[in-house]
């Protein structure tokens, strides 16, 4: 019973981190930017939704509007920051530092506007408890999280493999040089990717805080796990990033059966190190 509930909770939280990992992986594979400011976009989505809900906007339109806000911010980061740096041929480290700067700006602005304290959504459907077979009990937001995030992951995969834009994005990721000389316009594709990934990350960015509350600096820890999942899952593999994120969180939860909670972050890194030793290119890396 305990193990089952821990497992299911792990899958729920893991699916949220999975979508974060997938969106991060999409950006990294395509633009080669280690977009840590993604954590800021994730956080911003939650605060935007919170603001709208407090202004009386119903939950679903609030989510959609928050996603639109994230799309704008993500695209602007690409257009005003990464794009110009790329054109000037900036080193990856320079771009990473710029991204860290953007993250700091977003987080501090949020903290200045909303206070650094934890903000809570008003009591709503999210906290409603649904008893399930096997003694499982899930809250409304947990069910929403696992359903929305798995669907988002499925749609992202379908988008990447079935649509022309998805293929074009994968082409840019696969060979940016060839993309340039076949008029795939990689720079424009980078903006599309940032827009799509920002909309995607807004889903866990809103659903997570419905469960856990909002914190200006709350995006960094999930992003850390998400990047580990991306690397261990094989850079460029969206399915790998998602699967590893779920696996890591499930293991973090189950590890509690045999060790104290302080060690759960340690479990994440242990998984990472083991993976890097056994499969340095990641679990699902192509056989290039």
């Amino acid at each position, binding site marked *: 019973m305990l193990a089952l509930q821990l497992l299911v909770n792990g899958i729920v939280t893991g699916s949220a981190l999975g979508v974060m990992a997938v969106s991060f992986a999409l950006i990294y594979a395509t633009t080669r930017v280690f977009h840590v400011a993604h954590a800021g976009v994730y956080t911003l989505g939650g605060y935007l939704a919170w603001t709208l809900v407090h202004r009386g906007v119903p939950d679903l339109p609030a989510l959609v509007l928050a996603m639109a806000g994230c799309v704008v911010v993500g695209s602007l980061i690409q257009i005003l920051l990464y794009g110009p740096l790329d054109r000037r041929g900036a080193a990856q480290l320079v771009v990473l530092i710029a991204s860290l700067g953007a993250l700091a700006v977003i987080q501090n602005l949020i903290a200045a506007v909303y206070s650094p304290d*934890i903000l*809570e959504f008003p009591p709503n459907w*999210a906290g409603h408890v649904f008893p399930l077979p096997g003694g499982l009990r899930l809250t409304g937001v947990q069910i929403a999280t696992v359903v929305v995030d798995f669907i988002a992951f499925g749609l992202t995969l379908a988008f990447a493999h079935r649509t022309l834009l998805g293929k074009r994005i994968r082409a840019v990721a696969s060979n940016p040089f060839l993309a340039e000389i076949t008029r795939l316009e990689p720079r424009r594709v980078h903006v599309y990717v940032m827009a799509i990934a920002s909309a995607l990350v807004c889903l866990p960015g809103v659903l997570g805080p419905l469960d856990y509350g909002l914190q200006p*600096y*709350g995006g960094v820890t999930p992003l850390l796990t998400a990047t580990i999942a991306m690397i261990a899952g094989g850079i460029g593999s969206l399915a790998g990033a998602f699967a590893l994120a779920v696996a890591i969180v499930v293991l973090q939860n189950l590890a*509690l059966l045999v060790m104290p*909670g302080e060690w759960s972050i340690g479990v994440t890194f242990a998984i990472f190190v083991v993976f890097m030793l056994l499969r340095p290119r990641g679990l699902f890396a192509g056989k290039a």
Partner: protein
Amino acid sequence: MSSRARSLLAALAVSAALGISAPRPARAADAAPITFGAILPLTGPGAVIGTEQMKGIQFALKQQNAKGGIDGHPIRVVFEDDQAKPDQAVLAFNKLVGLQHLPMIYTAYSGPSLAMAPLTARKHVLMLNAGAQSDKLAHASPYLFNTLPTTADEVGVMVKYLRAHGKSTSVVLYENDAAGIGGRDDFVREFKAAGGKILAQEPTQFGQTDYRPALLKLAAAKAQVLFVVTTAGQKSMADQLHQMNQTWLVAGTTFMEDPPTIADPNAKGIIHTQVVANASPELMAAFKKEMGAEMGFFSRQYYNATQIMFALTEHLLKEHKAITGENLRAAIFQIKTFHGLVPMTFTTNTAVVPVAINEMTGGSEKTIATGTAH
């Protein structure tokens, strides 16, 4: 204050309110201002609380000075920002005491207060703490006075209540930092001393609000009580506790006094200790009008501490004694019981104050028991 002076002041207040300029009492204009200091976190992560504390002091000063100060002396407080950092606090202390020779300083956080404590003893400066609750503050310096009970005292009230209600087994969820570990240690010690048994403990990280794994593990121990010492993320915890459908009694500390949690239907049945510092609705309204903010817990605490400071000053002026740290300290034990927002008695450096046990009713909360800490 004599009743004649009182009615004169009332008349003044009315005329001031009507915009009539009346001649002030001659001695109010003549009397020199009396200045104290306050070292609070006004920037940085503690700024929200520090600002709330500052407003409590400022509001009390405005009220009192509008009434002509103390015995005609306007009262001033110089504010210094320590960002809740001990080293900054010591710098500020040296500035206020070394350069400006102020006899009394307000302080707030445990770290800065403990850093300044030895200096207060050396320089004979009275220090009033109305914000921090670390057990170490109780005996840190003969000059450091606390208007809040220590966590140990507050937890003691809860333990007494739990044992009186037949609870003999408990598990503990604590935040893995100074505040959480301190509270956990206090509870474990007091609960065991009262004959109870601790079955399990689990830590959480500050700001990490997914408590489910830890709570599930604690639930497996099947204790009668879950004692919680976390300083943030209470509403998420209430929701996650509700999800688990456990029969344990959830007990917490003052940190549970969090409006979103109280408003949450899922928080129904959670009990917690709460230092009593109630303000009348009129005072709350006046504060809001004057300061443009709600009179929160820390505003009330520092408003209350400022009433103590007024009483001490008035006492020394009446006795024609100099306003020094030594005399202020002696006056505390002479007056002994103060009547600010709550009755508060000093037999040691930490006040004996009423502590309530509140129960959340799923939307609001009610007091189900009251004890005194100490």
